[in-house]
Each structure stands twice: as structure tokens, then as C-alpha cells.
């Protein structure tokens, strides 16, 4: 009994620390300007909720179009990333292509300080006419995520025993068919984890979205961060926007939860 109590006390405490700041976002989203800086604790939780922040956000700012841009770019980006990294990871895992060096090279691109790469990328994109386009931002996001995705999937492919594939090939399957019919179904959880991570990352990216978009492809994070303005920080609008923006990733993560928990072993634990 004591053990059970201890378990729940710890669990509730941990959850409180995790949830409190998020709850604060949602509380603030419904606060009017007067309650925002209120200093007594009661008014912190008990206040007159208002939809004003949401009304202003929807009326005066392109919130929905920007959210749609985020959606388009991150979904398209995730799809492309997963396809490209599936292929590459399969090659690395099955044939040890490049003896680990190419894989390391791939992973190491993620360690380059990207703020420095922003200017050359910008000039490059300008020449290709990719500035402020969904395609341009998608390509950038694919590049940023492909190394990590490849590395993740590499682990999952390692889990699939070679013998299964060899048997299938003896049965007359071609390379593509083996991949499609035998290997692919076996790495479901791996795919789920990889996609969710890519999706979350792309959904939340700010720096490059800020620089490489203007209107047409502007993402919602750029809008939200702009409420941190020169003369005024519009916490109300920012939290209202964030409250909505979190929801889709939340739903995605909720439905994928089962796979995520199965998939996060990276294929590394061997019984």
C-alpha cells in the first residue's frame, strides 16, 4: 500500500512539473490584458476568461493560412524525408555501404552551425527562385532531418534478419519486392517514430522559416515569435496561437504513442 502511494505521489509530482508550464500557456491564452500581469495568486487561476486573444489573432493576423503552411511543409517534408532515408538506411544496414564512413558523414552534417549556412543557402535559393515557396522550405527541412532519420531507421533495419530476405529472394522475389513486401512491414514502429520526430521538428522549426519565407510560405511559428515585439510583448496572442499550434502534434503523438513506445528501442536492444 505504501509502495503504491509512493508510486502515485512521485508520478503526480513529476506530471505536475511537466504539465504546469503547459497549463499556464492555456490559462494565459484566455486572459485579458489586466489579468496577464496580475500578481496575486488567486487571480492567477481564477479570472474572467475571455476569447479576445483568439478573436484578435484570427481577425488581424493570418493565423490559419500560416498554420496551413506549417502543415503543408511539415507533412510534405516528413514524407520526403522518410522515403529518402528509408532507402539510404536500408543500404547502410544491409550492405554496410561505405563501411560506416558515409553514415557518419551524414550524421555529422547535423553538427554544423546552421546560422552560418543561412547566408549561402539564401543566395542559392534566390538564384533558384525558391525563396518564400513551400518547395524551398520543404527541401531545407528534408536536408535538416534526413541525417537523423537515416540514423534512426538504420537501427530498425538492423533488426530485420538477413535470412528472411535471402529466403524470399530464393523464392524469386526481386530486390524491390523484397523491400516492399518483406522488409517494409517489419519496420512499422521504426517508421512511426521517425515520422513523428521529423514532424515535430519541422512543425517547430523557426530560424530558417523566419528567414526563407515572407508571406506565401510563412509558417505559424514565425507569426507567433513576432508577437515578441519591439514595444510590447503580446503574451496573450502568443499563448493563444501556441495553444492551437500544439494541438495537431499532440493528436499525432497521442495516436502514435503505442508505436513510439515500441519503436524507441532503435532496434538496439538484443535479447
Amino acid at each position, binding site marked *: 500500500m505504501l509502495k503504491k502511494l509512493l508510486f502515485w505521489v512521485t508520478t503526480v509530482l513529476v506530471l505536475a512539473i511537466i504539465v504546469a508550464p503547459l497549463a499556464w500557456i492555456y490559462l494565459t491564452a484566455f486572459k485579458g490584458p489586466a489579468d496577464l500581469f496580475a500578481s496575486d495568486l488567486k487571480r492567477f487561476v481564477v479570472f474572467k476568461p475571455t476569447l479576445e486573444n483568439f478573436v484578435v489573432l484570427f481577425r488581424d493576423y493570418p493565423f490559419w493560412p500560416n498554420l496551413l503552411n506549417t502543415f503543408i511543409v511539415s507533412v510534405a517534408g516528413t514524407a520526403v524525408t522518410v522515403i529518402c532515408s528509408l532507402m539510404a538506411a536500408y543500404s547502410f544496414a544491409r550492405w554496410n555501404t561505405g563501411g560506416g564512413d558515409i553514415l557518419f558523414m551524414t550524421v555529422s552534417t547535423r553538427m554544423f552551425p546552421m546560422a552560418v549556412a543561412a*547566408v549561402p543557402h539564401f543566395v542559392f535559393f534566390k538564384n533558384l527562385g525558391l525563396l518564400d515557396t513551400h518547395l524551398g522550405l520543404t527541401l531545407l527541412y528534408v536536408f535538416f532531418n534526413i541525417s537523423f532519420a537515416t540514423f534512426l531507421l538504420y537501427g530498425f533495419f538492423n533488426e530485420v534478419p538477413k535470412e528472411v530476405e535471402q529466403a524470399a529472394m530464393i523464392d524469386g522475389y526481386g530486390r524491390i519486392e523484397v523491400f516492399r513486401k518483406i522488409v517494409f512491414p517489419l519496420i512499422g514502429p521504426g517508421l512511426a517514430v521517425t515520422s513523428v520526430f521529423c514532424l515535430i521538428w519541422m512543425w517547430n522549426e523557426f530560424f530558417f522559416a523566419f528567414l526563407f519565407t515572407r508571406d506565401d510560405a510563412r509558417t505559424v511559428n514565425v507569426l507567433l515569435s*513576432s508577437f515578441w515585439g519591439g*514595444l510590447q510583448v503580446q503574451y496573450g496572442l502568443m499563448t493563444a496561437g501556441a495553444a492551437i499550434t500544439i494541438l495537431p502534434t499532440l493528436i499525432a503523438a497521442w495516436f502514435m504513442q503505442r508505436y513510439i513506445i515500441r519503436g524507441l528501442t532503435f532496434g538496439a536492444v538484443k535479447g
Partner: protein
Amino acid sequence: MLHRSIKAWCGLLLLWGLTSSAYAQSNFTLDDVPALKNKKPIHLILETGDGHSKALPIIEAFTKKTGVPVNVERVASSGVYGKENVELMAGTGHYDVVYVETSWTTEWSDLLYKLKDLANKFDPGKSAALEKEMANMSPSILATGQAYGNQMVLPFYTFDMTMWVRQDVFDDPTEKANFKTKYGYELAAAKTWEQLHDQAAFFTRKKGEMLKGQPLDHDLFGLSMQAGAYQDNDETTARLWPTGNDWVTVVKDGTGKITKFVITKADKEALKTVLAEYKNDLQWDSPGALTANFDFVVAQIGNGNAIIAPTIWANCTVWADGILKEKVPGGKIGVYPTPGGQPYTGAWSYGVAKSTKNPEAAYWLVRYLTSYEAGLRMFKEAGLIPGRIDVMETVSKNEPVYPLGMLAKYHIDIWKATGKYIPNHYYYNTKAGGKVYDNQIYVLAPALTGEKTVEQVVEDLTKQTIDLQNKFDKTAPCVEEK
């Protein structure tokens, strides 16, 4: 927080709208814009924030009158430099009208049209018409928007510094009497930093002590400053300039051409003194000051947690007053020159990019955004202070004294006072301005937090400033006086 005051002003605005035709004759209006043949859309940046949103109807009016579509991109001010710089340098030609913080004017001067050239080309009244319009603007603010004597940008709104004091507290008989007993002179807005120290110490009180005869239900701080890695350099500037020194001394020959940039011994000594003083003043400020930006100061004053903000942006006054009214009944802000009388100054301004495909419309949009009509609206509706003397005069004549009339009067006076110093200051004469300015923010901060000694910081800054100045401004060498 601006909402409340805005609503109040809306009524007044309506009234003004009905009577404005009386003023309109002498001022530039949209009717003075000739028919524009080139209808290519204009792209520009407008800062985010409730206040700046008040510029949207002004821009719409321009489109309605001229038929030139204007595409407005909302960006937070902290992001403007990076975004515009990349677009301009990469030569995308995306921004037709460029939003400029005045310390970058010289740096970008090769990328912007001289406004005079555009006036000669597109204005029926030629450059004389532009000069007539500029005669209505603050000379000191205009000077911040010049590069090598040419006007590159016109001020949209200014960020003159000011000192806030809680006027109701300063006027309180008990406080006045107590102060006089203790320090031997009258309590009034500080003219010198020494007086400020007395007042700061006097008003720093613990919870339970008295203020205006009432016990305090929270700790009270004498000062509130924005000493975080955001504007610590501007606060230092407001302390440095009155000493008669500068970050770098600009040496010009008889013709006004810059021959040398020198960091003199006196410059360094003055900087050491003011930094030590600045750090010392933090003892009367909330510990939060070390990461504070202006919004923190606004909140401190607005909530009645601090009495004096010695170096704060005048255009935050309406905002702070809005909070104060609600949180501290009877609370009132007074605006005064910063101690020493040489506040930091500058303006967010608009200029025309050379890469624009529609220079004519861009020129007229800049003219309209910085016009009397637009300036008056921005001031009354949003509390943003335009760089125009005529607006200030109208407001000080026709508006209630508090807070707009008071602000207007402050600006008329401070522009007169500082006009003669500004054109010589280092910031407005260097091509490395944007870089040196941003570097200062980071180099100064450790002196205030105590991570490094003042001497160390001044040495670091001297070395880095010379390095940046020589790297990015080849017009004249920069040296240290040995």
C-alpha cells in the same frame, strides 16, 4: 495594454477627423501625391504590436488613393536587421521600402536612394518640397537618418530616451518633506546622476515601510533599468554622452570629411566611470534588471514597484501609464530629460531601396508614412512618437496635458537641446554602426553582472570596436590613443 487608451483616443480621433480639413491645407496629404503610372506592388516591413497595427489603415488609404498595392510583412523589431540585411545583400529586390533603425543608415547607404534624388525626379515641387517637409521634422532625429550629409531615411517613429519619475510620489508633501530633511534639498526630477543616487536610495524600501503615508504591501525599488543583454548599451550611451565623450571620437577635417576614428584616453576613462556608476546604481534596482528589457521597466513602473526609470524609451510612456492607472490609483508618470540631459536618440525610419521596381510609389509611400497626418494618427492612437515638430505642437496645443501633451512638450524641448550634438556622434558617422552597436550589447553585460571588472570590459570593448570599425568601414582608420 495599449487597448484601453486607444479606445479613449478613438473618440477624439473621430472629432479630429471632422476638423482636420482646417489643418490640412498647409500640410502634405495624399491629395498632393501625383497620379502614379507604375502600379507594381510595394513590399515593406511593419513591426508587430498593437500600436503598429494602427499604421495599417494609413497604408490602406495610400493604396486606395494611388492604386498601388502594398504588401505588409509583420516582423518583430529584433528580427528586422537580419531579415532585411540578407534580402538586401543577396539583391533579391524584395523590399521596396526599407525599415531602418537609424544606426544602420550609414551602413546601408550604398543600397538606398538619396531621398533628394528621388524628390527631384518624382516630386512636382522637386527637392524644395522635400526640404519644406523636412523643416517640420526634428533636426536631431533627421540627423540620425543621414549618411555623409545626405538624407537617406525619414523617421516613422522615434525612440528618444527619457527619465520617468512617479510624479504623484514626487509631488507628495510627506515624501517631499522627508527628502528635504534627509538630503537638504528639494525633491525634484534629478538633473545630475548624484541627485539620482540620493533619490534611488531614498525610495528603495522594504515591504511594510511607508510610501505616501501608506504601508507598502511589496518591496519598492528606487530605480528600474533595462540592464539585460538587449539595451544595456543605450543606457550606457545616455550616461556617456553627457560627459562630453563618446564610444569613439570622430575626427573630421575642415570640409566635414571624416579623417580618423579615435578611441581617446578620455573616452575610455569616461566609459569606465559611467559603467562603474551604472553597476553601482543596480543596487537600487530589482535583481531582475540584469536580464531586463524595456518591457520589464514598463511593468515595474506600471505596477508601482519602482519610482524612477532613469533611461527609458519615451514611446513606452502611454503603455506604462495604461498599466499604472489600473494598478495604482492616482499614479502618474512624469517625463524628464535623462540626468545629464543627453538621452540616447534615434528613430525607426523608412527609406527606398535602390533595387525597387517602383521607386516612385516607394518614395511617396515613405513621404506619406512620415507625414503630419500619419504621424498625428500614430501618436494619438498608438502613443508612438513621430519625428515631427508640427505634430508635437498640435498635440501640445489641442490635447490634454496628460500624457500626450506632456510627451509632446518633452520632445519639442529635448530635440532643441540635443540637435547640436547628434550629428557628431560616432553612431551616426560610421559604416560599422550596426555591428559595433550589437557587439556592445554583449561586451558590456559582464561589467554589469560582475562577471568581469569594468577595466577588463573597457579593454575588451576597445579592442573589438577598433577591430570591427577597421574591418567594416574603410573610409577612415580607427585607432586607440596611446
